[in-house]
């Protein structure tokens, strides 16, 4: 059972998309799983022949449970376990548990097998046990426990509570003149068929992705009490669902995609997020989240970091404001960009330079 984030403890297998004896390639969709974040498609993380299914439809199993076996030419590999690119997840066995945590689990009646440890080398800590105990108690007191919206709200709440409890956030914001970017966008869209038009979000995302190349410490996960820089810049895109709730799939290697390619992928990702057809890897691979509430009229977004990430970028609305240009006050389209960052990893000085880099990049939209 893949981990789709630090807040996910278990999932229910809905359907196998492949059967024993079928050939599967790495990345093939092999199963559908129901989680607190909705129905997710699970990919094989290795190539071979699906040999044996270990979890039947309808079964709810903890993160890290081996769901099936895929036979490679030389070895038999567990299939549909957490993808390597995902956040660290507890394997089914062996599990590292501190004696204190084990005792606390007994006191609270918590099943240790369902816990994803956050301590050193994935060890289960007292805090992990107490967190799960709180999570286990709250849903039983909630009449709408089976309601998917309530489950999603619970998952968001668990992740955000953990973030606020464990991450010493600091916040910065800057206001950026988007005049050049919006003029470039209008010029581009004038000659494009409607299906190929760009929205400002594509430019904003690309600028963040490129800026992260110069600030790799912000493109990291907090794992085992230290920041681990991630080799790929995978931007998590916060997507509000129309039925309520929020999901954050990732645009992988966003810095390497052209603005057009990023726009196509963004369109596809948002459509699949709203249609409930995301893949497990897309929910587990984000290295920094970007959120925009500008379409809802918000001026500044001061977001909560999504663990194990160490930073989040927010954009407000693009609005015409008086702006001083060479001594003259002119109307310019401007946007606020904010950074929420983990003080264990960076200081405000680096954060400020990062926001300034985004500003610089957006002044030359043609070069994005």
């Amino acid at each position, binding site marked *: 059972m893949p981990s789709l984030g630090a807040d996910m403890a278990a999932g229910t297998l809905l359907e196998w998309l492949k059967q024993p004896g079928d050939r599967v390639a790495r990345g093939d969709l092999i199963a559908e799983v129901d989680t607190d974040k909705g129905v997710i498609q699970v990919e094989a993380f290795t190539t071979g022949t699906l040999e044996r299914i270990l979890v039947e439809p309808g079964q709810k199993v903890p993160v890290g449970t081996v769901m099936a076996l895929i036979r490679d030419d030389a070895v038999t590999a567990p299939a549909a376990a957490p993808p390597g690119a995902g956040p660290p997840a507890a394997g089914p066995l062996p599990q590292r548990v501190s004696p204190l945590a084990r005792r606390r689990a007994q006191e609270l009646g918590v099943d240790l097998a369902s816990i994803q440890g956050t301590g050193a080398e994935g060890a289960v800590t007292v805090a992990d046990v107490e967190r799960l105990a709180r999570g286990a108690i709250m849903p039983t007191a909630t009449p709408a426990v089976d309601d998917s919206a309530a489950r999603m709200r619970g998952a968001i709440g668990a992740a955000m509570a953990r973030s606020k409890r464990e991450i010493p956030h600091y916040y910065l914001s800057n206001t950026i003149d988007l005049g050049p970017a919006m003029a470039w966008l*209008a010029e581009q*869209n*004038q000659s494009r*068929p*409607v*299906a190929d*038009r760009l*929205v*400002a*979000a594509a430019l904003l995302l690309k600028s963040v992705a490129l800026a992260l190349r110069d600030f790799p410490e912000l493109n990291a996960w907090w794992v085992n009490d230290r920041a681990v820089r991630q080799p790929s810049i995978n931007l998590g895109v916060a997507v*509000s669902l*129309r*039925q309520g709730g929020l999901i954050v799939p990732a645009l992988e290697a966003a810095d390497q995609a052209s603005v057009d390619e990023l726009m196509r992928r*963004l*369109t596809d990702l*948002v*459509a699949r997020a709203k249609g409930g057809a995301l893949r497990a890897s897309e929910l587990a691979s984000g290295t920094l989240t970007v959120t925009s509430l500008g*379409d*809802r009229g918000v001026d500044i977004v001061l977001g909560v970091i999504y663990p194990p990430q160490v930073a989040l970028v927010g954009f407000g609305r693009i609005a015409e404001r008086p702006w001083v240009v060479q001594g003259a006050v002119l109307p310019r389209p401007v946007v606020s960009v904010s950074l929420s960052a983990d003080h264990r990893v960076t200081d405000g000085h680096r954060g400020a330079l990062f926001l300034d880099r985004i500003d610089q990049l957006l002044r030359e939209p043609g070069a994005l």
Partner: protein
Amino acid sequence: MSREEIRAAVLHALGEVAPEADLAALRPDVPFREQLDLDSMDVLNFIIGLDQALKVAIPESDYPRIATLSSCVAYLEAKVSAGSSFVR
């Protein structure tokens, strides 16, 4: 194409981006974005839907003219009746 057919096409395109919305209750002179909580991606998908259904070119500079049901239908009606020079 009649006004009613254009209106139906507009409502269909809206229904594609906001499937949960009660389109029968849509107020004709209030912007879609205010009533249906549309973001910029929704708006683009709505315009793509109109483009596919009506084969009418809608430049980005005209987006403010299709902000409400009334103005959108009137705008598209004029485009369709103006003939092939406006039809992509």
